[in-house]
């Protein structure tokens, strides 16, 4: 009896010590080699932000976490245990410089970890990790097997009879993983609470990640590309005419440039697919020479497709590559996204977008008119460049995108970042 109690005590202590969420100690007790650097960094972020991240009862068993055969600081799944049972799995992917925490209740994941943590006779296997394609996404699967003896009197797989039963966990590269909160049964994500924008990853961009180019430098390189520059120049000339038509061009990720569709006055139409990078368009002489609400929403559509063509296993985040340019008589501007795909607002239903556009159009025009008055001007006059820039910042704040969109001014051969002071005034342009 004493021996049994001692044994129970040993087991209990072992589990307890492996599950202390505040512990900075990590010992790999899984059946596979793990990306220990990533696990330790994620543990650190979790410990610092547990109050925000924690969505379910239970304790993360870090020592049983698995990075599912990835070693590029990109992913980890951690079992969450309550009362001796794995009740949830915390998954933490990295996108660029941020990591995102979300919980899943997938039955196969729960079973996998239940056996990994608590089974006595287990082995890595079936027999190796394998790759699989699921719903067109690249996935990595990791298998383990648990021994089921025919008789409890001889549970040893070495000498008794029984069979091995395999379970697996699967990791998929998908933008759908940009979710924190609780993954609902239908695959949607309950985003209530927490830091929806992710948490900065202590390891920075991770090994093997290219340093991120500054938005201004990136735009400068873009507009100085001869192929795009010639189109910008032609739009500039067109913007000086009294035409009611607009003009535009769009660029794909391979650098190919094609004209935007124009079948009527006062609009251009971009065809966005997974290969789209961005677009430029003119505003008419008498229109407002700044991005409109729908221009910005269309830009977000470009931003959303930037990661669609990432190679299998890549943890890069190219959301910041998307761009939209507005070329007008009084000034030309480009916008790029400041953040990763996890920072993008969730897509809206058509009805939601319709209502949001109407609200933001009203807001945009109202701001313009109030700014005209602030500049001592009449209706029919045009805003100063600083007024137009303030209009942009006031609008994106109303759209819930404050700090998420970079405004870059292109003036001849000069490219500058435009920023706002905390008091709402516009800083002197910062050239690059």
């Amino acid at each position, binding site marked *: 009896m004493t021996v049994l109690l001692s044994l129970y005590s040993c087991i209990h202590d072992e589990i307890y010590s492996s599950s202390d969420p505040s512990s900075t100690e990590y010992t790999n007790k899984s059946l596979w080699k793990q990306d220990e650097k990533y696990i330790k960094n994620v543990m650190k972020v979790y410990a610092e932000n547990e109050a925000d991240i924690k969505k379910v009862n239970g304790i993360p068993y870090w020592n049983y976490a698995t990075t599912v055969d990835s070693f590029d600081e990109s992913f980890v799944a951690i079992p969450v245990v309550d009362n001796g049972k794995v009740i949830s799995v915390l998954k933490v992917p990295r996108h660029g410089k941020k990591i995102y925490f979300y919980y899943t209740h997938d039955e196969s994941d729960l079973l996998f970890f239940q056996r990994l943590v608590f089974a006595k006779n287990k082995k890595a296997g079936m027999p190796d990790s394998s790759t699989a394609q699921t719903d067109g996404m690249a996935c990595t699967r990791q298998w383990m097997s648990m021994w089921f003896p025919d008789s409890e009197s001889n549970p040893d797989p070495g000498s008794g009879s029984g069979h091995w039963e395999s379970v697996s966990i699967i990791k998929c590269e998908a933008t759908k993983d940009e979710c924190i909160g609780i993954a609902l049964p239908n695959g949607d994500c309950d985003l209530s609470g927490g830091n929806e924008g992710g948490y900065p990853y202590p390891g920075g961009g991770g090994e093997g990640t290219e340093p991120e180019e500054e938005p201004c430098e990136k735009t400068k390189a873009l507009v100085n590309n001869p192929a795009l520059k010639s189109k910008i120049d032609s739009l500039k000339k067109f913007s000086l005419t009294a035409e009611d038509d607009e003009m535009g061009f769009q660029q794909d990720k391979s650098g190919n440039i094609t004209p935007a569709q124009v079948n009527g006055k*006062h*609009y251009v139409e971009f065809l*966005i697919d997974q290969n789209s990078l961005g677009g430029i368009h003119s505003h008419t002489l008498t*229109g407002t020479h700044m991005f409109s609400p729908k221009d910005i929403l269309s830009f977000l559509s470009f931003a959303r497709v930037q990661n669609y063509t990432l190679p299998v296993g890549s943890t890069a985040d190219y959301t910041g590559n998307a761009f939209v340019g507005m070329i007008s008589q009084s000034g030309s501007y480009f916008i790029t996204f400041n953040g990763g795909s996890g920072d993008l607002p969730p897509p809206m239903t058509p009805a939601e977008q319709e209502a949001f556009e109407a609200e933001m159009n009203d807001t945009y*025009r109202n701001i313009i008119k109030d700014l005209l008055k602030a500049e001592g001007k009449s*209706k*029919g006059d045009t805003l100063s460049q600083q007024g137009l820039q303030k209009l942009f910042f006031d609008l994106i704040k109303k759209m819930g995108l404050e700090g998420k969109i970079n405004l870059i001014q292109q003036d001849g051969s000069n490219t500058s970042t435009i920023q706002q002071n905390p008091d709402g005034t516009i800083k002197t342009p910062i050239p690059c």
Partner: protein
Amino acid sequence: MKNIFLLSIILLSFSCKAQQIYPLNTNFLTIPNNAYLKDTNNELMPFVGMWKATFDNKEITIKVDKVDYHYIKSGTQVFYRDVLFIRYSIKNAQGAIIKSTMNLPITEAKIKSDVTFPNQNLISFVYQGGDCRYGWGDVDLTFVDATHIKWNYQPEGVILTNLNCPNGADTTIYLPKTPNLVFTKQ
């Protein structure tokens, strides 16, 4: 019982905070939530009524209605404003109606006033546009005299995508686009 009644009155007096009212011309970004931009100078009423003009062989009729205390949402901000709505009807040279919003409920008309420019006797409106926002922009009405107003319509450009504008949308802009089109009161 009497004490409970008195306590209720006191609590109610605390919870009933007086709404803040501002002149129509106040910058909406500077007002508190739930404030009311009221037409204290009676700037809107002279525009109310039925008005008619002809342009490009078309007869254009507009009906201007005033709605007090209209609910407005702008991001996280909510406020109320006295506004005008414009409904319109356009007939071709043969007298056939080619576009009309006259049968819409007033507040569903897509042309709504926002800012006034009293020094110019001008009321500015926002037009939400047709399909996919084609032709969205400003409409300005300028008061000339009791029976005449001037119309200026300035459409804005817009980027559309295959994702946010389906095929088959009507790209015709129906509103008259000519400077200072004079309408006569009916």
